[in-house]
């Protein structure tokens, strides 16, 4: 039927274009290009023999970083597990004797993680960060379930200075009321002065 006929805008070939000469020309040009590239240095890198330094912001294996003073940054606020689109983060928050909130256990199932980076974006304390280390492949799927000891690293990661407990007005072993950034000394409720 006429509707089924495919319409093309192609014009019929001219006699010169369909000649043997033009075919030969194309063949030579093609070989010339191949020969040129054969002599060139390759743009690809041979992985795993060569391992390129990836940009700092590439998103791969997730770590838990520490404060500048070396304490765990994670306060187990559950924002990363809430925002995670594949629900691969689970944890249990608890209170340390010094008054800090921390993750008693923290688990990321890398078998499920899609490395979207939303957890890092949601983290209010810069604790959870994605690193460029993408070589996280295991034969046994269970070994991809990382516990806190596997996730915790030394150092601050991409945020070298932030310390949540310097800003939160929570009493810890280091800071009492009125001793945090931008805080006035505690109110004396017994005073009558205006």
């Amino acid at each position, binding site marked *: 039927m006429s509707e089924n006929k495919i319409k093309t805008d192609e014009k019929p070939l001219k006699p010169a274009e369909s000649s043997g000469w033009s075919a030969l020309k194309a063949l030579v040009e093609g070989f010339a290009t191949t020969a040129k590239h054969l002599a060139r240095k390759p743009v690809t890198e041979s992985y795993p023999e060569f391992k390129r330094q990836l940009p700092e912001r590439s998103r791969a294996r997730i770590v838990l970083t520490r404060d500048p003073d070396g304490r765990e940054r994670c306060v187990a606020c559950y924002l990363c597990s*809430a925002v995670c689109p594949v629900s691969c983060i689970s944890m*249990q928050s608890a209170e340390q004797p010094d008054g800090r909130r921390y993750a*008693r*256990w923290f688990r990321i199932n890398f078998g499920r993680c899609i490395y979207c980076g939303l957890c890092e974006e949601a983290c209010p304390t810069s604790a959870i960060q994605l690193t460029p280390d993408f070589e996280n492949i295991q034969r046994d799927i269970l070994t991809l379930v990382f516990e806190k000891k596997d996730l915790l690293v030394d150092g601050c990661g991409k945020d070298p200075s932030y310390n*949540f407990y310097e800003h939160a*007005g929570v*009493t810890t072993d280091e800071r009492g009321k009125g001793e945090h950034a931008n805080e006035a000394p505690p109110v004396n409720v*017994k005073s009558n002065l205006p």
Partner: protein
Amino acid sequence: MPTLKIDNREINVPAGTKVIEAAERLGIMIPRFCFHPALGSVGACRVCAVAFTEGPVKGIQMSCMIDAQDGMVVSTTDAEAVDFRRHVIEFLMLNHPHDCPVCDEGGHCLLQDLTVAGGHGLRRYRGLKRTHINQDLGPLVQHEMNRCIQCYRCSRYYQEFTGYRDLGVMGIGSRVYFGRSAPGMLESPFAGNLIDICPTGVYTDKPSRYIGRRWDYQRQPSLCIHCSLGCNLTASARYRQVVRHEARPNLEVNGHFICDRGRYGYAYASIADRPRQAMAAGTPGPIVDILAGAREAIQQTVEKHGPGSVAVVVSPRSSLETLAVVKEACGQHGWTGPAAAHTNRQALNRNTAVSCLRPELAVSLAADTEAHDVLVIGADPLNEAPMLALSLRQVQRRGGHVIVIDPRGVQLPFDFDHWAVHPSAMGAILQALIQEIGGHRATAPDTPATFDITKLARRLNASPRPVVVCGTDILTPHEIALAGDLARALRRTHKVAGLFYTLAGANAFAAALLHDQPVSTEAVLDRIEDGGVRLLVAVEQDLWREFPDRKRLQAALKRLDHLVVLDYVDSPLNREAGHFIPTQPLYESGGHWINQEGRLQAASPVMAGGEPIEITGGSDHPPRVFDRRIPGDEPLAAWRAVAALAGEDEADPAPQLKTALADFHPAVNLSTPEATGQRIDLEAIAHDLVESGPAPEPAEDDAPADAVVLLLVDWTFGTEPLSAMAPALTRMEAAPVARLHPDEIARLGLAEGRPVTVSLNGNRLTVPVQADPRMAAGVMAVPRHHLLEWQVFGETRVIVKRSQLKAESE
């Protein structure tokens, strides 16, 4: 009935309704912090500003402070009003700390929601943040004053609503502080509600501190089963552990609040020693085999000794489903029971109360608050059913009057009249009252002159809305029936008079409908002792903890051929039992409960069950080995287990449950979903249970003059067996003491603070003595405390002679 227009929608509201409430009826939620339906308006937070464009009021006004009036035109979306609210939020956030990540309120915080809604994200103010020193408010409530936005909800609730004075507002200006004058345990047993009403995280839940976020919780509507009032609550579970209760508003029952016993009593469902393994004579085995073994044991006993040789006891705390299936099983097979009360007196008390509760007299807990005068007879509200005390407080706040006739040293958080009369005098006083109310001059019983019955009768007669509240614990059936008569007598002179009984057990009302003739555990033990009963099935009834004569119980159980226990709490009987079958608490089974006014209420299952991850992981991360089954998922809903014991092999118990519920009692109709939440058909309950029961036991009239009546009583914390397992509440409870009037201590030759030993029929109970000047003379009140071995006398009301009391040196 003013008609006003809010956001171009017209609405007609009753006079006196605030604009904010009128908007709520239209589904428009005007932001609010200080306004709370139970506490009313103060206009402290300024965040409910709306624009009044036409009518009697003009301009930007606080919608919680303005009564809805005719012709008002209100805009909640007016640009000026929106801007006003935005600025108020920013202003309230000036001093708010930067601690949402570590704040337990985060995720269900009203301030957080409205800050986001108001578009405030960055703090523009450069000044310093005001800080406050926190206080230790005890084991239930965590204090963090930095977060306060001065809405005054806490002090209004604590002082005005509950009537306690130890938490309030201090300081002036921007230094306003909400707390106690000195750190210490909050005195109110309703303090947990501070957590619910605080719009931000100043008061947070301490037992569930840092446990998780609300969005992660499995939350379902549930019920409190720690007394008979049936308060509504929302239960939260996480990682197979019940972690939190919150009050669920039900304006017909508990209003907006619950007591701390109900709020924190959930730990029993998740504690480490909750039995989850079926056992045969202490040896664990698969639940299917154990059920089959128990069924076989029952069949053998029936074959050998007849169906009556199998007896069933069931808890008045069990769900309606369990009670119905147990009743059906006993009826079908001719087993003895089910017994759902410990002693004959308790069974009779409960059934008397239920039979006296006529539909025209029954009032709900919420309707109680509208009473003008409340006469409380033989009940200690704060200790037996705490929310009743909060209800009575509202009566007093509205100008009503509360009179308590009770031998115990009843305390309530407001002014009330207490007639501390001896238990034996209660009946005479009630009879005299009924006569006086009927217009007859009564011969005054032998009571002190301060207890003026004529005056009380006149007051009740003159009251526009009197309510009689009656306990069923320390009284006799006769007195409970008299309380009903009193309410009926009042109804003859009043159009509205109420009757309100408290019962023992969350489903005691349904337990009363099991039989016309109440059966008690005591009666079952009689049958065991005379050899009539050879096999006992205890369904969720921890006889070890709750039966008032442990020695007799143990002797009786030894005479049994076989004991089958179905329960969710740990008890020595579980290991002694021939067959033990673990059951599910209400968080896993769900079910229906009938509260003391006959209201049928439902609780949804909150979680699937299994050992909490906290336990399987040993407080660390969950195990890294996976199984097809959840560890500890064997417990069955009690009704399923009973159906399996009573029914055929492998039969599906669901149809059995359906017929059991349909046949349970004509008053209880579960066929329509609308029936849930409503009072059952009280008319369909036989109102002659009192006459048909066994004769009331002899009164204490013939007791010698120097005798005292020993009452085993309830305390708010420490006596209710399930809530007593909660670690947070064990820190709230006082050590068990025997309370006596100081004169009585002197008369009996005892010394305050020193222990006294009560020896009766070869049983002994030693407990320290405490003086309580509010107690009646001749009475000794001992709590059924879990730290006290009170299960010695077989009764909860006994007469003790002077010679049976011995003062211990230390």
